[in-house]
């Protein structure tokens, strides 16, 4: 896996065009009323939403959280040419969070005049990277791609933030969205409100229209934003920190097409697929 996530992570090894692609999880249903429902979920990276036109998302970092907060096993996992797919049996009533999570630490330093590059988990970082290394620069990359499904009444236990990277905190439940009603969400970055962050919302079905119809909203001081959906359908939501021409981003210091090595600094991205139902 990891080819895509890693590629995004190791900014210096990929072309900026990768950022034109969109990562997503697409559940077969988000609102279910049967007693022991199943959903099947597609995971892909594509240009068009929500069509399989580029590469699959690998499922190595799949974390499904059940209504009681415990992990749920994803069954029938398979990865094809354009998409990965898996099934979830929603044995408990309530809301499930489906997430592809990648948290990485990058470090570079100089050892006896030789440049060293290191990449790994937070745990491995503490063990493997000498804290007093010469010229040590550390950056962290967090990527979270999510979708939500609910059997019966929506619950919020599975939606507790982990405190790492960019995360969505529901004010309006993500499986309780209908046209014409305002929906409010909060974004946290490492557990703190992600203020003044631009959030992009794009309705699915891009293939059959000429314009993206993307909407950009900015979070307030509490990291909150509100929007009202006029049309029903699946929407792609995305927010990124540390991108653009800032250090580590395309064209920025240490980023693809930019000068120098990756500097100390953090990048985080959050993506969710949310369904808006008609009234």
């Amino acid at each position: 896996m990891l080819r895509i996530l890693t590629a995004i992570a190791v900014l210096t090894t990929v072309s900026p065009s990768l950022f034109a692609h969109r990562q997503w999880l697409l559940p077969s249903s988000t609102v279910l009323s049967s007693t022991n429902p199943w959903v099947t979920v597609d995971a892909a990276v594509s240009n068009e939403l929500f069509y399989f036109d580029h590469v699959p998302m690998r499922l190595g970092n799949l974390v499904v959280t059940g209504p009681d907060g415990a992990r749920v096993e994803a069954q029938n996992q398979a990865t094809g040419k354009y998409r990965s797919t898996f099934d979830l049996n929603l044995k408990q009533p309530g809301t499930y969070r489906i997430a592809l999570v990648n948290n990485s630490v990058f470090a570079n330093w100089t050892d006896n005049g030789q440049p060293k590059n290191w990449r790994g988990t937070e745990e491995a970082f503490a063990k493997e990277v000498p804290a007093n290394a010469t010229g040590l620069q550390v950056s962290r990359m967090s990527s979270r791609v999510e979708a939500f499904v609910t059997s019966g009444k929506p619950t919020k236990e599975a939606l507790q933030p982990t405190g790492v990277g960019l995360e969505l905190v529901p004010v309006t439940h993500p499986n309780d969205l209908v046209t014409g009603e305002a929906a409010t969400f909060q974004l946290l970055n490492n557990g703190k409100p992600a203020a003044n962050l631009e959030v992009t919302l794009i309705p699915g079905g891009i293939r059959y229209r000429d314009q993206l119809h993307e909407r950009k909203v900015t979070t307030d001081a509490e990291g909150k934003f509100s929007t009202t959906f006029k049309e029903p359908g699946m929407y792609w939501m995305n927010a990124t920190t540390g991108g653009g021409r800032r250090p580590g981003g395309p064209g920025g210091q240490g980023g693809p097409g930019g000068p120098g090595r990756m500097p100390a600094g953090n990048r985080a991205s959050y993506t969710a697929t949310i369904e808006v139902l008609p009234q």
Partner: protein
Amino acid sequence: MRILLPAALLTAKAMAADLEVTVEIPRLGVAEYHRPYVAIFVERADQSVAASLAVWYDQQTNKQESGTTWLKDLRQWWRKSGRDLKMPVDGVSGATRPPGTHTVAFRAAKSALAPLPAGQYQLVVEASREVGGREILRVPFQWPTASAQPAQTKGQTELGVVKVAVKP
């Protein structure tokens, strides 16, 4: 209909009013026809649900799916009330009905109407048909009422005439 004692007029709850709802399910010339799922419920002025009166659905469970699988397609009812209920609900759950005109009466004392405070409400009929469409109709009514004034509306696709009569 009953004759009311003057004392009973003092509290709405104690009133023996009836709500009579007539729902016409149209006969449709389609290749694959399934009887619609229908929810009959009462909304307050803010469109929140005051009472779920009836839900007609396929209560049988087979190997593939439970009878509640498609209840979510009664979208407004499911979101505002259904998902909070444990189906089946006595006196509310019922089997799907064939094309034709169906009259159902709800007695204040014996139905979900019992705790309803006096006021202005809307009777909502939502219908959703497997491999077909969905339609939702609203008929305003006063509860309880002193005069039996029926009101009605007519659907375009999944529902015919829906008539609501509050009997004093």
